[in-house]
């Protein structure tokens, strides 16, 4: 023992070595993920949706708000590939712009709820004690409510609009992140390299910033991918219930809702929007599933 070099620099190098072996977890997960065919399919689906969302104005000659009273409820044709809606608007154009709305809302929800959840999860896991008890109490309480109903009540009070949807779902949905991150922090907190960092006199603050955060980030990234389907479905559901994004904004949820009155005459309005939501969510679910398997090899088939 005596002949070991216990100088600050040497111990720091040793700690960094340990740290690196842990943070290569993300590249390990990625290499396992690439081998999963369904995950790859999901990746392609999501890429296409992102492409559509970005290039919507180039992909279609129409505008999402352009009404045409002489072409109401027209079935699919060469001019209108997915027909027109009750106001003569081109449905495909609205679906393309809807991809924008869906992805923007989804990403905003995840950023908002993720920020709250990850922060509170880190605080809860790292400091423990009374703070932990209080935060976990709030988590327990919020999880007793059906997410969609509490969000609906909050959005209903705040009024319609994209930002109110994001705020309502974010205020309710952060608990999953907080729990995951908290349990991850507890594992990291008891690991050798954190203990070693303390032993060379690093402060609590620098331990959180330099050792605990970097190691909790892969968990957080994967959480975000896994939570995307929930965010997409929840925001579409709020639009459908009438407290979310409202017409004329082309959101998929409100398009399904509006097309409901014309199901017999013009079934293409609701069904096409439904298929778009479904395929997008399916894509994210394939990715999420692949990530989960890649993250936890014990759940893998065979």
């Amino acid at each position, binding site marked *: 023992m005596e002949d070991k070099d216990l100088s600050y620099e040497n111990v720091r190098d040793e700690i960094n070595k340990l740290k690196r072996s842990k943070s290569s977890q993300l590249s390990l997960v990625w290499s396992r993920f690439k081998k999963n065919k369904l995950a790859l399919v999901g990746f392609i689906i999501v890429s296409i949706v992102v492409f559509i969302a970005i290039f919507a104005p180039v992909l279609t000659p129409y505008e999402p708000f352009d009404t045409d009273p002489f072409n109401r409820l027209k079935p699919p044709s060469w001019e209108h590939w997915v027909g027109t809606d009750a106001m003569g608007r081109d449905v495909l154009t609205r679906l393309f712009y809807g991809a924008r709305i869906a992805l923007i809302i989804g990403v905003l929800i995840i950023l908002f709820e993720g920020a709250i959840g990850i922060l509170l999860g880190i605080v809860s896991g790292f400091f423990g004690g009374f703070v932990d008890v209080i935060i976990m109490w709030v988590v327990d309480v919020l999880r*007793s*409510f*059906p997410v*969609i109903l509490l969000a609906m009540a909050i959005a209903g*009070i705040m009024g319609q609009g994209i930002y109110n949807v994001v705020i309502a779902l974010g205020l309710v949905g952060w608990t999953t992140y907080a729990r995951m991150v908290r349990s991850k922090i507890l594992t990291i907190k008891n690991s050798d390299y954190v203990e070693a960092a303390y032993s060379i006199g690093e402060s609590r603050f620098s331990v959180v910033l330099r050792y605990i955060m970097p190691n909790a980030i892969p968990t957080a990234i994967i959480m975000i991918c896994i939570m995307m389907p929930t965010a997409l479905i929840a925001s579409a559901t709020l639009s459908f219930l009438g407290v979310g994004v409202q017409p004329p904004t082309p959101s998929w949820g409100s398009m399904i809702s509006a097309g409901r009155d014309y199901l017999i005459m013009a079934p293409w309005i609701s*069904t096409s929007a439904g298929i778009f939501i479904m395929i997008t969510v*399916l894509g994210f679910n394939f990715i999420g*599933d692949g990530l989960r398997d890649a993250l936890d090899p014990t759940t893998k088939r*065979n």
Partner: protein
Amino acid sequence: MAKKKRYFIYRILRTIITAFGVTLITFLILHLTPGDPVKIMLGPYATEENVAALRAKYKLDQPLHIQYISWISNVLKGDFGTSIRYDQPVSELIASRAGPTLVLTGSGLLIAVVFGVLLGVMAALKRNSILDYFSTFQAMFWISMPAFWLGILLLYIFGLRLRLVPIGGMLGITSLILPVLTLGLRQEAWFARPMRAEMLEVLNQDYIKTAKAKGLKYGYVIWKHALRNALIPIITMLALRLPWIIGGSVVVEVVFSWGGLGSLLVNSVLARDYPVVQSILLLMAILVVLANLAADLLYAVIDPRIRTEG
């Protein structure tokens, strides 16, 4: 046994503390959001006197903690206030709408658990077979559809095109089919996968191998030993899924014009009838809290592994 008693007391105390939090959240939803709830309720053309009168009626002119205490003591007495839209006690409204919701949610839950457990067990027994892949794929399929979209799709196919069932309302058992399927199919997916995983794990246990080695019949081993143990975690799963099933049933009620608590809740949110919104949310959340308690206590009672520790 003392250990088990301590666990029960701890769990019940925790439930009370969580329930207290639930009442706080439902109470605060109205007060923490921006804007004056009374002005929002009455609309932009309300006179000053009307606003003041309503504020006094709901005790909104008093400090927050006084308001909470008077609200909670009324709730504990079974008085949930008066609906603004119907001018009728909220408790009466809820009582008249609870039946249809219980029927819908109960049947949906039943379908979800029965199909989920069956598919999960079969997938585990015939691992990597077509059936196993089918089970995985169908689960993925259902959870990728928002409940309202699945409902509208079923309504379109079976109600409007094939005309097999009524397209909405509550007209006997046939109008129950589509709502229950919509609810059940989406939730079944959440039971099939854990059930498969649990069953696979149990099948790998030594006591199953021992039972097989003793020469017991395959079906007997599966039924008597494996399934019974694999089903235990499903109790916890049930409690965990309950808020989602309640949330789903609300959406389904709106799609199928089902006259239960869910459509009352959505209409009350849209009409800004806050006493009704608060009361229904409170009841649903308390139900979830109690279901979680029941699941934990039941788990402790029936799981042999926990029993031997006591």
